[in-house]
């Protein structure tokens, strides 16, 4: 995906505002042409990190290198980055044409050439002929596109986007997600995209840095983050996850066997995480990895008997909560409402059977909440 494995290098960067540590010792490498997201709850330091890339905040310690050049001594107006602000920051005293042309003054293009370039940008953002309008005559989505065009016309090496879709309604947001992703592919500019919406990050990004309280928890591709979270915090933040406690009984070359009490003996696939025999482990299973059946499944595999306590119909899928004797939390299970799905199960009350394949099991360290990942 990336043609340059380290186009932006963030090295042990920290930022404090007085006694508030907004960003603590963050390191990451972002490749050239990558769509990279910073994902985390509000207040976790995403904006601060982005503003340090743009040069609006100076790191308290650490260094930022962009395209081989250290940014410590480069003022914001000379950095090879441009930003799309959270509120779009369209200049109200200028029309749309002049807004988009704003950053091109230094290039000293002939007027006709500049006008042509602006018109091209307006075409690209699907607002042709909007040049004479003012910002207050545009809708939120249109303003967002203008902010994008204003930054992209400068052909920056990096485009920084701070929750650019946050103010849009759901339908428009989903449409803009697709457009933004397609645009990024076609222009080939590195995007650093800030969002608190995990679904948005998952659908758009090449890689995601999950942040919490000023630190990075895990930096990985969307699939890796979803399928192989390395801490409970990441697993809980991205999607829904069922957690069970267990104790490791045996470890061999490709399997880890865990005694999970009421859940029975659970087999997990051995990957990079090392477990010792007798160690406590967290067993994590996504709701959609379980299968539900009314009768006892015949044949081999993992299954357990439970009691259906609630069902929720969400259109394309249904959610179920199943209470199992000996497990405190009801287990969350989801199933597609496809044509072949067993619709009886939605109206079913009482006894059901839960099954899961070994591959569904993610094993996490018991107190892994403070480990940091690369």
């Amino acid at each position, binding site marked *: 995906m990336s043609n340059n494995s380290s186009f932006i290098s963030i090295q042990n960067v920290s930022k404090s505002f007085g006694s508030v540590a907004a960003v603590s010792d963050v390191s990451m490498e972002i490749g050239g042409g990558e769509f990279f997201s910073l994902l985390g709850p509000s207040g976790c330091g995403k904006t601060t990190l982005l503003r340090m890339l743009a040069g609006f905040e100076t790191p308290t310690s650490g260094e930022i290198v962009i395209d081989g050049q250290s940014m410590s001594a480069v003022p914001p107006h000379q950095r090879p980055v441009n*930003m799309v*602000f*959270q*509120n779009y920051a369209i200049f109200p005293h200028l029309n749309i044409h002049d807004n988009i042309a*704003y950053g091109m003054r230094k290039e000293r293009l002939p007027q006709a050439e500049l006008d042509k370039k602006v018109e091209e940008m307006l075409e690209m953002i699907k607002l042709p002929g909007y040049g004479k309008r003012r910002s207050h005559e545009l809708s939120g989505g249109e303003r967002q596109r203008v902010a994008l065009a204003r930054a992209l016309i400068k052909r920056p090496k990096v485009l920084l986007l701070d929750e650019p879709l946050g103010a849009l309604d759901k339908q428009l947001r989903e449409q803009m997600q697709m457009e933004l992703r397609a645009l990024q592919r076609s222009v080939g500019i590195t995007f650093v995209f800030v969002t608190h919406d995990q679904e948005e990050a998952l659908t758009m990004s090449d890689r995601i840095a999950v942040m919490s309280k000023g630190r990075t928890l895990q930096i990985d591709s969307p699939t890796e983050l979803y399928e192989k979270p390395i801490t409970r915090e990441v697993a809980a933040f991205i999607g829904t996850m069922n957690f069970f406690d267990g104790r490791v009984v045996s470890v061999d070359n490709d399997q880890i066997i865990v005694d999970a009490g009421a859940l029975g003996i659970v087999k997990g696939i051995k990957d990079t995480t090392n477990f010792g025999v007798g160690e406590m482990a967290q067993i994590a299973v996504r709701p959609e990895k379980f299968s539900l059946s009314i009768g006892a499944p015949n044949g081999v595999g993992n299954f357990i008997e439970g009691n259906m306590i609630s069902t929720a119909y969400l259109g394309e899928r249904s959610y179920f909560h199943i209470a199992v004797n000996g497990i405190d939390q009801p287990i969350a299970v989801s199933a597609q409402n496809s044509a072949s799905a067993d619709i009886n199960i939605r109206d079913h009350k009482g006894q059901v059977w839960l099954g899961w394949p070994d591959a569904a099991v993610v094993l996490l360290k018991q107190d892994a909440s403070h480990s940091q990942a690369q």
Partner: protein
Amino acid sequence: MTDNTATLRSTLPRSTKSGGWLSSLLMRFEALRGYLLLSPTLLIMIIGICVPLFILVGMSLWTQHGFEFDKSLTLANYFNVAEQPIYKALLARSILISGGCALATVILSYPMAYFVAFHVHRHKMVWIILMTLPFWTSYLLRVFSWKIILGYNGVINSGLIGMGLIDQPLEFLLYSPLAVVITLTHAWSAFAILPIYVSLEKIDRSLLEAATDLGDGPVRRFFRITFPMSLPGVIAAALIIFIPTVGDYITPTLLGGPDGIMLANLISAQFGKVNDWPMGAALAIALMVTVALFSVVFVIISRKVTERIT
């Protein structure tokens, strides 16, 4: 007791009904609501401004004969204003002095307002109040204190002589248009700081960051974003100074000397010593119309200028 409740019951529905009628009327006609809210101010405006203005206009069409008014309508006074060079000269001087005041006030107030808006982060209001402090003393006191500062044996002259920089006191300091401009500028600066400050304070800081992000250094950013966006405040400040100072006659009387006399001095003389009220009224109207014209031209020009520099 029962009687009371009965009357209450019978009156209640009716009163709510009439209230509903009124409020539904107000709901339906938004303009009516607006006028209702405006009505106290509107009333004062009509009584306090429009009525005297009509009287003034009416009087300017009369002529004075000794102690009597000739009430036949004539434009003779206005022809007089247009023909006599003294009136035109004083009108031009009034405009120049007030324009100079407005310019000086805005130039001096802008940095102060800018400083408070962008570089003071706490107790902004305290700073603003401190800056308006000169305004807390009486206007006459301020004028007299400038007389002491600028006078023949005043603070500046004796200071400069004491330092051996000059032998003779500088005579142009007092009783000159310069003295009038200095005094009026000082007296009115408080009025200019506020609108400029408000327009600067209102500028969304992310717009400034966006301009920086798009490659503008601090100076270019000031001329492309900050200044044009603060222009409404600047225009307001300039007009707030220009309009009242053009009619000032106290400062020119006390500090202007023969070269610093303004049209308003002449107007006040018409209503006093000269005792030609219709002529005074015509001069006042002429001054008012000129000020209005200058203000309109000023607003248009400053709009155009901003469009050019951005």
